[in-house]
């Protein structure tokens, strides 16, 4: 995990491949490019309590039941530790740093960590693989800043423990919202799922389990307008979007799972993005709008968004990069 301090390892080396991001996509790209002898350098990001962190979104989950090869399931952080070990086994050079700027206007591409205004990039790569993933969306209300870590949480696995025998809520209606809600019923007295629509986006198996869980209940057609409390969560202001009726519910914990946004800020203006911010890749490939830049995983996938599809697309990006480098005579 140790990283060289910024600046001390800056040199004129140009790597064949630099990979940005270390979820299932980035680490699979690393395994493949390392085995192809392309000596990949992987900038894995820095720890954070959002999903934008080394290991990606699975670092904040508990049991992963649908990753093939693990018939009894596996813990998300454990799975990602294995991915990382496998990438290191073949010589991936992993840096625990966060990319602050990229320059894709000429090759080799420039990648900065630390000061984005530094005249020279920290790393340079003939090819770049973008696997920066997506991060959790927040509610976007004032109270969030005040109460994050004080009853408001984005990580059920980290913080569920502190809500033993309390009445709490989860905001959202997808698989991750239901997974969190069900995990939280191990601790809480009751868990209410607040969802802005009348039906869930979650998969059928998750819905069946959720409806069978007697500690779980649902508030349909409802959104959170505000969270009450100065130093800790004391209540949640919920608005019914059909009737407009506003009520304050006495929940003492709020877990937010309303979806994700792609981590594409670094590439805005340099790579073509969809209207929703996701990177555009050419059909059936990992090629972006800039030759030599490949993208994989959730940063370019607003449809499947699974660990296994991310890993699959990471493999595609590695092979695309390898063949492109070969054609360039590298």
């Amino acid at each position: 995990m140790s990283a060289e301090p910024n600046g001390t390892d800056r040199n004129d080396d140009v790597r064949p491949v630099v990979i940005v991001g270390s979820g299932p996509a980035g680490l699979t790209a690393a395994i493949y490019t390392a085995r192809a002898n392309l000596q990949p350098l992987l900038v894995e990001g820095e720890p954070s309590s959002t999903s934008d962190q080394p290991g990606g979104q699975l670092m904040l989950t508990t049991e992963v039941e649908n990753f093939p090869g693990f018939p009894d399931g596996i813990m998300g952080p454990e799975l990602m530790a294995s991915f990382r070990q496998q990438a290191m086994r073949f010589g991936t050079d992993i840096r625990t740093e966060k990319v602050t700027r990229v320059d894709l206007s000429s090759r080799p591409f420039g990648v900065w960590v630390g000061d984005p205004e530094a005249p020279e990039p920290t790393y340079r790569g003939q090819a770049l693989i973008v696997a920066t993933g997506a991060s959790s969306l927040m509610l976007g209300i004032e109270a969030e800043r005040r109460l994050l870590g004080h009853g408001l949480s984005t990580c059920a696995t980290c913080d569920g423990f502190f809500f033993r025998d309390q009445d709490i809520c989860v905001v959202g209606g997808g698989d991750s919202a239901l997974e969190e809600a069900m995990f939280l019923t191990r601790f809480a007295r009751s868990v209410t799922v607040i969802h802005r629509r009348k039906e869930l986006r979650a998969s059928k198996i998750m819905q069946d389990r959720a409806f069978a869980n007697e500690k779980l209940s649902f508030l349909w057609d409802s959104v959170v307008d505000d969270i009450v409390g100065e130093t800790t969560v004391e209540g949640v202001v919920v608005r019914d979007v059909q009737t407009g009726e506003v009520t304050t519910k006495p929940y003492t914990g709020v877990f937010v799972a309303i979806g994700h946004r792609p981590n594409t800020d670094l590439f805005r203006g340099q790579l073509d993005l969809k209207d929703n911010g996701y990177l555009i890749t050419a059909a059936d490939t990992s090629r972006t709008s800039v030759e030599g830049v490949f993208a994989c995983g959730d940063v370019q996938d607003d449809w499947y968004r699974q660990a296994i599809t991310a890993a699959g697309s990471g493999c595609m990006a590695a092979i695309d990069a390898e063949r492109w480098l070969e054609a360039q005579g590298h």
Partner: protein
Amino acid sequence: MGAIQQLSEATFAEEVNASDVPVVVDFWAEWCGPCKMIAPILEEIATEQDGKVRVAKVNVDENPGLARQFNVMSIPTMIVFKDGSEDQRIVGAKGKPQLLEDLAPYL
């Protein structure tokens, strides 16, 4: 020197009050992914900043009373104790540069 000490309900007050340098107490648990991510960073800080700050850990599973006493509701939470009382609180995992920036007043 520079080793990270595990604190318990029995030893907490004594260790934290007796320290002549600020103590960074990391509240953590085995099941918390972000806690595991920052563990090696805290080890580095403990070694590199030896003599300026001490780093200690509280396992909240084994010491729920300490978590309650200091109103810890999210982990990792790092509380800096200076002369035995809370001086600063850092909630959530962060990279080494940001942690060092937060701890700059003590270094």
